[in-house]
């Protein structure tokens, strides 16, 4: 059974349709990242999941129970979750009182609250901050207080809205570590909205791509990045090689795609004559100095247009009748003596060519 499930969520702000039938479910202990551009409806989904807003239509199930409307059940259910907002606000009180709030409203006694808050202050590395005015904290500190305040009750579901937007890299990695820790130590189910694809990949077990109020695709991160369902997702998740062409033949699932006279082979169910795009991940492309025989179905003579290195990797832009980007280690680029203007062979398997319509 899913811990949290929503079916056919619709939401409207005025006349604007913000959500258009979103289905989503998470299992206990799972981390799900909702990625999508600004205005895609990520925050709206989180607010509905936290039962802050009622959806215009659709149902929400918590541990199998329909909690969409019943007022009593909503408070009870809300108390098993917590939401950290994109711009967290602190109550005009001390850091201690801020973190203690969720326990106070649940009627915990003073000594229990004090023990839990001190332990949480240690967890988020703010042990000496208890008496500080919570409104005088830096962005990273405020975010950690907000996270501590949400996690103090060890909620079953933690909802995070852009938890590291506008934070410096150090604060970002601190927050990411905390998120992973809470997930592992307490088995907290986490649903986080982010526009940072890499963050989604780092933290999430599954990624849902939300665009324009619709859940375009949901699956394991590698699935989303390797097999985007359509052009919009491919572009948003930053697939670097998207090559437009027309299917010229389909031979038992192996298609030939005609790209300006060149032929790329891939695996697809589409029929001859259909307009498609071929997506190839840069790391799936291998470069060789001479035409070698290998199992790769696709091999093209190419000229190196640009080499840019980042860290241990080199990003090589090629021209072979169509533009292609390959990613390899900087060392192998050096050993092969790759440089701009040099001619190479670019190869990739038919299975690495993911074909989408349009």
């Amino acid at each position, binding site marked *: 059974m899913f811990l949290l499930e929503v079916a056919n969520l619709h939401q409207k702000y005025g006349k604007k349709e913000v959500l258009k039938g979103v289905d989503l479910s998470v299992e206990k202990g799972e981390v799900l990242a909702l990625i999508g551009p600004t205005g895609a409806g990520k925050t709206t989904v989180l*607010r509905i999941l936290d039962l802050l807003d009622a959806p215009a239509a659709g149902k929400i199930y918590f541990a199998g129970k329909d909690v969409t409307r019943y007022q009593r059940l909503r408070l009870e259910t809300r108390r098993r979750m917590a*939401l950290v907002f994109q711009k967290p606000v602190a109550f005009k009180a001390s850091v201690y009182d801020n973190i203690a709030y969720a326990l106070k409203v649940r009627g915990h006694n003073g000594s229990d609250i004090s023990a839990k808050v001190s332990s949480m202050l240690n967890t988020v590395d703010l042990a000496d901050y208890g008496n500080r005015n919570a409104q005088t904290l830096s962005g990273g500190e405020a975010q950690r207080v907000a996270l501590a305040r949400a996690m103090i009750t060890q909620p079953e579901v933690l909802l995070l809205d852009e938890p590291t937007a506008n934070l410096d890299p150090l604060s970002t990695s601190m927050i990411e570590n905390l998120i992973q820790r809470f997930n592992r130590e307490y088995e907290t189910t986490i649903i986080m909205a982010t526009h940072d694809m890499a963050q989604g990949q780092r933290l999430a077990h599954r990624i849902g791509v939300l665009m324009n109020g619709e859940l375009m695709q949901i699956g394991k991160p590698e699935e989303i990045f390797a097999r985007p369902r359509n052009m919009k997702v491919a572009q948003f998740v930053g697939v670097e090689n998207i090559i437009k062409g027309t299917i010229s033949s389909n031979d038992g699932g192996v298609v030939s795609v005609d790209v300006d006279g060149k032929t790329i082979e891939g695996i697809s169910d589409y029929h001859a004559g259909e307009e498609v795009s071929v997506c190839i991940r840069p790391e799936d492309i291998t470069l060789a100095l001479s035409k070698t025989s290998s199992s790769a179905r696709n091999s093209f003579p190419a000229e190196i247009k640009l080499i840019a290195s980042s860290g241990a990797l080199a990003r090589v832009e090629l021209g072979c009748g169509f533009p292609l980007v390959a990613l390899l280690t900087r060392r192998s680029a050096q050993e092969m003596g790759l440089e701009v203007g040099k001619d190479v062979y670019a190869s990739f398997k038919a299975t690495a060519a993911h074909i989408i319509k349009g």
Partner: protein
Amino acid sequence: MTEIGQGFVKALELIISLDPEVMEIAWRSLRISAASTVLASLICIPIGGLIHFRSFRGKRILINIIQTFYSFPTVAIGLLVFLMISRAGPLGFLGILFTPAAMVVGQMVLITPILLGLTISALSGVDKAIKDTAISLGATEFQAIWAIIKEARYAVMAAVTMGFGRAISEVGCAMMVGGNIRGFTRIMTTAIALETVRGELELAIALGIILIGLALIINVVLNIIQQRYT
């Protein structure tokens, strides 16, 4: 001129010597107004919170009506309360006409619009995210309202101070439902009105000085609160 000058001198003598009658009247004024302010606050702050928190049809109109009543004539309130608690009125069985209790009730009615209206506008100044934060952390509706009130505590205190100021300075309602009975329901404002007409200027001036002094203190406190708040 000499009469006024003499009045002032005698008035100061009365204040400095802590004249029993002056002190007794001033003390009663303070007690009655403090009681009415506290009781009205206990009712108005939560109700103001509820009006602020909930969205319902006619909310804007309700707030407009409340604000219109800020300057409702005190004698009209006096008349209303009188009609309610006089022997023939619906609350006549309480038998509180011409008692301090009646004055407390009158002042409560009088300052309710100010307390309600200023509480609502104080709470409107609180970041909307506070409400969402409290709710998402598991607060009930009343706990969330309380959290919002705490955020606006300085502005709410200013509202209460304004209410007290209006209660202690009004005369019409206290006269009509209290009856200005010496040693029982006579307060500063009613005493000043009476003693002035009777020509007992020194007593009137002494009470006037105390009343103005109080108004001054209230204003200073209000200013300090508002400076801290903004």
